[in-house]
C-alpha cells in the first residue's frame, strides 16, 4: 500500500537513509507492513507509532556506525596506516596542513588565555579600583596625592587606598649599581594587592619609611645567595633603605611590574604627598557590598571640592582592576584584539578542516576501485564509513601531535612577536588538555564526514565498469571555499602592505625638529645639581655641538596645566601641555622660531617668560604675540617667541598647543647632547668621563633619541610582523585548498584532456585551459578582498592623525602575488594532466 500521507513517506525516507545495511529492503518493508496494519486501527495511531520508531532508533543507528568492536579496531588501524603509506605525498601534505592550522589555533588560544588572565591573582581583585582623572582633554591614570586620604576620610565605602608611583631609581649595594623599576607605595598597598612574599611580613614590611621590599631576582642580583633581610640598599646615592621583605617575582600577567617597593616619602617628600598634584595612579579597595556606580557618582566632584587652586574642573572616576589591561581609558580597547584573535583562531581551524576534507576526497577515483572491490567482497556501507572515519581520526591525531610539536618549536618566536612570555607547559592544565583532545577528535570527525559518506557510497558495478560519476554538486562549494581562502590571504597581504607603507612614512616623516645624532641622558638628583657645571665643559669638546636639558623628551610632552593669556577673562583658561626647558633647547633640535626668539641668557627676565608653539598661538588668537602677557597658574609672564609646530607626541595625535618655560616648575630630568656623526665612540667616552668626574658612582646610561622614537611605534611594528606571519600562513593554507581542488578537477577532466590531446592540443594549451579556470577564482577573490581591504585600512589609518596616502600599489601587488602563487600550485596538477598519455586515459572502456 502506497502511503498517501506526506508525513509517513517522509519518515520512511529518513529511515531508508539512516539504515545503511544491506537488509534495507526487509527493514523498510517490515515497517511499511506494520504501518499498514496499524492504519486500519486509525491514521494517527499509526503515524504516532511510526514516529516513535523513528525517534527511538536514530541514536542507536548513529551509534552503531561508530561502534568499534575490538576485533574491527585493529583492522581499521591497519587499513588506515596502509592507506597513508600508499598515498604518502597526499597524506603528508594533508597532515601538515591540518597541523599548521591546529598549531595556529593553539598559539592564539594560549595568547587569548594569557590576556584574559591579567591581574586575576589578587585576592580582593574584584573590589580594587584605579582612580582616574577626567578632564576636558581626556581621562588619565594619574590622580592627586591627597585624593586617597581625602576619600578615606569622607567615605566609609573606601576600606583602603594607596598611591602607586612607578619610577626608575638608581639602586646600589656595595659595588653593584643599577637602575631599577621601583613602585612607591604606602603600606596599605600590600594589603590591597596580593603579592606573595617569600620572607618578611607583608602587613608590616613597609611600616618604616626607610624600608624597601625587593623581588626574588632583585635580591639575587644584589645579594647573591645571602639573605637580604636587614641589609641596606642605597637609593639615588643618597638614602639608605633597609630590606624588610622579599617577594616572589611578579608574573607577567600583571599590569603592575616592578623590582622593588619603597615609600613615596623617600622619593617625593612628605609635603608633596599632601598636595593635590597628580603624579601617579592611585588604587582603592571598596568595602564589601558597596555599589561601585553609586560610589563613583559620589566621589566625582571631590577634587573640585577641595582643590581651590583653579576653577578648572577635574572629575574623579573609577576603573576596575581587572579591566585595566583590556580596557583603555581612551582610544580602542585592547579587548577588541582579543576577541578578534579568538575569532581568527576558529576560522583558521575551520579552514584547515575544510582543506583536509577536500584533499581527502581529491583522489577519489583512485580509491574508487578499492571501495568497489571491498564492497564486492562483502563490506557493508557502515563498515566503509567506519574505515574512512578511522583514517581521518588517525590522521587528525597525527596532526595534533605534529601541531603540538610546531607549537613547541615556534613558541619562542611567537613570544617575541607578541611580546609575551607564554609557556608550553601552560598547555598542561586540565582544561587545555581536554580542549586539545576535543579539537583533534572534532576535526577528525568533521573533516571525515564528507569523505566517509561520499567514498562509501560508490556502487561497485559502476566503478568496475569505470563509469565515473560526475559529482558536479561538490565543485561549486569547493570553488566558493577557495575564493574565500584566497580572499583572506589577499586581504592580509593588502593590510600588510598598507601597514608597511605607513611605517615607512612614519620613519621618514619630518617631525619639525631634528632627532638625529642626539643622545639623551637621564639625570638623577645629583646629576641635576651638577648639570650647570657640566654643560660648558661638555660643549668644549669638538664633537659636541649643543647641550641642553628639559623635563621631557620632545617626543613625549603631555603634562597639562591650565594657562591664561592676555585678552582672556580671568575665567578663560586653556589646558595646554608644557615642558620646562633649558637655554639652547630650540637650537639643539633645530626648531624654527616663527616669531620672536628662543630663550637666551642675554635676557635675565626670560626666567619667568614663555615660548609657545603655533597651535597655542592659534588658541590665543594673538596676531602679534611677542611681548603679550601669558600665565600659568598664578605666574605671570610674557611671550618671548613662537616656535613652529612640531610633533610632540606620536603621529597618532594631532599637534596640540604647547608652552615652554625656562626652568622652575619641573626640574630638568633629561639632558640632551648633540654629537657629530663621526668618532661616536670617542665622544661617548668623553661624556662618560665628564659625568664620572662630577657625579661619581653613577652608571652612565644613555639612549639615542631616534631609538626612543622607534620604540614609540612598537605596537605597530609588532602588528606588522604578526600580519606578515599570518599572511604567509594564509597563502600556504589557500594553496593547500587550491591543490585539492586542482587535483579534483584534473581527475574529472582526464577524458576531456585526453580527447583534446588526440585532437592536437599541445600541453601548453591544456595547461593554459586549466589555469584559466583557477585564474577566475583568484580574480574573484581579489574582487571581494579589495573593497574590504580598503575599508579596513581606512579604519586602521583613523588611528593616525598624520598618515600617508595608501595608493593603488598594495592592491596590485597582492593581486599579482596571489595569481603567481595560484598558478604555481595549479601547475603541479595541470602539467601532470597535460602530459598524461591519452591512451591510458581512454583505455578503460
Amino acid at each position, binding site marked *: *500500500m*502506497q502511503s498517501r500521507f506526506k508525513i509517513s513517506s517522509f519518515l520512511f525516507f529518513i529511515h531508508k537513509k*539512516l*539504515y545503511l*545495511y*544491506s*537488509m534495507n*529492503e*526487509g*527493514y*523498510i*518493508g*517490515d*515497517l*511499511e*507492513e*506494520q504501518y*499498514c496494519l496499524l492504519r486500519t486501527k486509525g491514521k494517527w495511531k499509526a503515524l504516532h507509532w511510526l514516529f516513535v*520508531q523513528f525517534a*527511538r*532508533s536514530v541514536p*542507536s*543507528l548513529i551509534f*552503531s556506525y561508530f561502534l568499534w568492536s575490538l576485533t574491527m579496531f585493529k583492522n581499521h588501524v591497519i587499513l588506515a596506516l596502509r592507506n597513508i603509506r600508499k598515498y604518502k605525498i597526499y597524506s603528508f601534505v594533508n597532515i601538515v596542513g591540518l597541523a599548521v592550522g591546529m598549531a595556529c589555533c593553539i598559539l592564539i588560544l594560549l595568547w587569548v588565555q594569557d590576556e584574559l588572565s591579567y591581574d586575576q591573582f589578587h585576592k580582593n581583585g574584584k573590589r580594587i579600583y584605579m582612580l582616574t582623572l577626567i578632564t576636558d582633554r581626556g581621562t588619565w591614570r594619574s590622580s592627586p596625592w591627597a585624593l586617597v586620604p581625602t576619600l578615606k576620610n569622607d567615605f566609609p565605602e573606601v576600606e583602603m587606598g594607596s598611591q602607586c608611583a612607578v619610577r626608575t631609581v638608581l639602586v646600589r649595594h656595595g659595588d653593584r649599581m643599577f637602575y631599577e623599576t621601583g613602585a612607591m607605595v604606602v603600606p596599605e598597598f600590600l594589603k590591597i594587592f596580593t603579592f606573595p612574599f617569600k620572607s618578611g611580613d607583608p602587613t608590616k614590611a613597609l611600616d618604616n619609611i626607610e624600608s624597601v621590599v625587593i623581588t626574588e631576582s632583585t635580591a639575587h642580583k644584589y645579594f647573591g645567595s645571602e639573605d637580604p633581610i636587614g641589609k641596606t640598599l642605597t637609593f639615588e646615592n643618597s638614602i639608605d633603605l633597609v630590606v624588610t621583605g622579599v617577594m616572589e617575582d611578579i608574573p607577567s600577567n600583571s599590569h603592575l611590574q616592578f623590582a622593588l617597593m619603597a615609600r613615596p616619602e623617600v622619593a617625593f617628600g612628605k609635603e608633596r604627598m599632601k598636595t593635590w598634584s597628580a603624579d601617579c595612579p592611585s588604587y582603592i579597595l571598596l568595602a564589601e557590598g558597596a555599589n561601585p556606580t553609586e560610589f563613583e557618582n559620589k566621589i566625582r566632584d571631590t577634587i573640585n571640592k577641595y582643590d581651590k587652586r583653579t576653577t578648572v574642573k577635574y572629575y574623579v572616576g573609577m576603573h576596575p582592576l581587572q579591566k585595566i589591561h583590556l580596557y583603555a581609558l581612551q582610544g580602542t580597547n585592547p579587548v577588541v584584539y582579543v576577541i578578534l584573535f579568538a575569532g581568527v583562531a576558529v576560522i583558521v581551524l575551520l579552514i584547515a578542516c575544510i582543506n583536509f576534507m577536500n584533499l581527502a576526497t581529491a583522489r577519489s577515483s583512485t580509491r574508487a576501485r578499492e571501495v568497489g572491490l571491498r564492497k564486492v567482497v562483502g563490506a*557493508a556501507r557502515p563498515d566503509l564509513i567506519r574505515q574512512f572515519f578511522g583514517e581521518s581520526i588517525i590522521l587528525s591525531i597525527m596532526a595534533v601531535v605534529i601541531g603540538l610539536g610546531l607549537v613547541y618549536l615556534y613558541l619562542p618566536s611567537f613570544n617575541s612577536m607578541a611580546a609575551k612570555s607564554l609557556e608550553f607547559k601552560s598547555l598542561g592544565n586540565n582544561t587545555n588538555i581536554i580542549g586539545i583532545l576535543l579539537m583533534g577528535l572534532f576535526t577528525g570527525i568533521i573533516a571525515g564526514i564528507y569523505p566517509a559518506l561520499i567514498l562509501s557510497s560508490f556502487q561497485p558495478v559502476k566503478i568496475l565498469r569505470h563509469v565515473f560519476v560526475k559529482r558536479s554538486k561538490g565543485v561549486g562549494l569547493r570553488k566558493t571555499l577557495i575564493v574565500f581562502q584566497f580572499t583572506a590571504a589577499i586581504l592580509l597581504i593588502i593590510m600588510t602592505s598598507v601597514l608597511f607603507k605607513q611605517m615607512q612614512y612614519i620613519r621618514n616623516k619630518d617631525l619639525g625638529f631634528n632627532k638625529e645624532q642626539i643622545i639623551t641622558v637621564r639625570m638623577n638628583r645629583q646629576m641635576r645639581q651638577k648639570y650647570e657645571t657640566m654643560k660648558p665643559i661638555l660643549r668644549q669638546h669638538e664633537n659636541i655641538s649643543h647641550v641642553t636639558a628639559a623635563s621631557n623628551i620632545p617626543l613625549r610632552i603631555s603634562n597639562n596645566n591650565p594657562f591664561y593669556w592676555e585678552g582672556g577673562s580671568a575665567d578663560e583658561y586653556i589646558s595646554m601641555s608644557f615642558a620646562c626647558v633649558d637655554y639652547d633647547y630650540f637650537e639643539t633640535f633645530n626648531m624654527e622660531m616663527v616669531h620672536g626668539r628662543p630663550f637666551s641668557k642675554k635676557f635675565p627676565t626670560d626666567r619667568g617668560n614663555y615660548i609657545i608653539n603655533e597651535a597655542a598661538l592659534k588658541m590665543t588668537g594673538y596676531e602679534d604675540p611677542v611681548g603679550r602677557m601669558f600665565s600659568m597658574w598664578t605666574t605671570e609672564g610674557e611671550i618671548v617667541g613662537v616656535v613652529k609646530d612640531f610633533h610632540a607626541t606620536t603621529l597618532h595625535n594631532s599637534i596640540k598647543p604647547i608652552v615652554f618655560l625656562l626652568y622652575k616648575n619641573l626640574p630638568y630630568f633629561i639632558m640632551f647632547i648633540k654629537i657629530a656623526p663621526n668618532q661616536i665612540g670617542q665622544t661617548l667616552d668623553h661624556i662618560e668621563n665628564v659625568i664620572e668626574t662630577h657625579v661619581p658612582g653613577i652608571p652612565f646610561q644613555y639612549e639615542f633619541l631616534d631609538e626612543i622614537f622607534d620604540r614609540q611605534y612598537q605596537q605597530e611594528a609588532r602588528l606588522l610582523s604578526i600580519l606578515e606571519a599570518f599572511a604567509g600562513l594564509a597563502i600556504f593554507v589557500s594553496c593547500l585548498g587550491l591543490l585539492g581542488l586542482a587535483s579534483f578537477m584534473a581527475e574529472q577532466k582526464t577524458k576531456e584532456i585526453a580527447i583534446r590531446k588526440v585532437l592536437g592540443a599541445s600541453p601548453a594549451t591544456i595547461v593554459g585551459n586549466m589555469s584559466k579556470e583557477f585564474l577566475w577564482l583568484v580574480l574573484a577573490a581579489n574582487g571581494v578582498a579589495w573593497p574590504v581591504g580598503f575599508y579596513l585600512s581606512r579604519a586602521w589609518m583613523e588611528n593616525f592623525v598624520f598618515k600617508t596616502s595608501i595608493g593603488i600599489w598594495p592592491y596590485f601587488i597582492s593581486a599579482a602575488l596571489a595569481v603567481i602563487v595560484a598558478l604555481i600550485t595549479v601547475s603541479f596538477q595541470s602539467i601532470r594532466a597535460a602530459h598524461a598519455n591519452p591512451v591510458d586515459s581512454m583505455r578503460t572502456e
Partner: protein
Amino acid sequence: MKDLTKIEETILLAIWRLEDNAYGVTIKDHIHSSSGRQYLYSTLYTALEQMVRKGLIAKRYGDPSPERGGKRKIFFDITKEGFIALESAYHKQKSIWAGVTEKSFREALR
C-alpha cells in the same frame, strides 16, 4: 566461542519457534507475546545483521507484496552453528539455574 547476548538468544529462540515463517514482523510480534519485550525494528535488524555475519542464521528472500510497497520479505533460518550456540547457551543456563524452583523464591522473599 563467545556467549550469545541476550537479544541474540531471544531472537534465535523466536526464529526456531516460528520455523519457516520468521521475518521481521513475526519475530517482533513473537518476542512481544512470549516475553513481553518490545524491540524496535532498528534494534532487531542491527542484531540480525550481526548474527548473519557471525553465521548463526541465514537469510533468504521471499516474495514482494503490495503491503510492503513492492519490497520482498527477508526470512531467517537458524544454521547449524546457530543451533550449537543455542544448545550451549541452554546448558549453561540450566547449570546456573540448577535447583531453583518457585518455592525457592517464596522462601527467599519471606
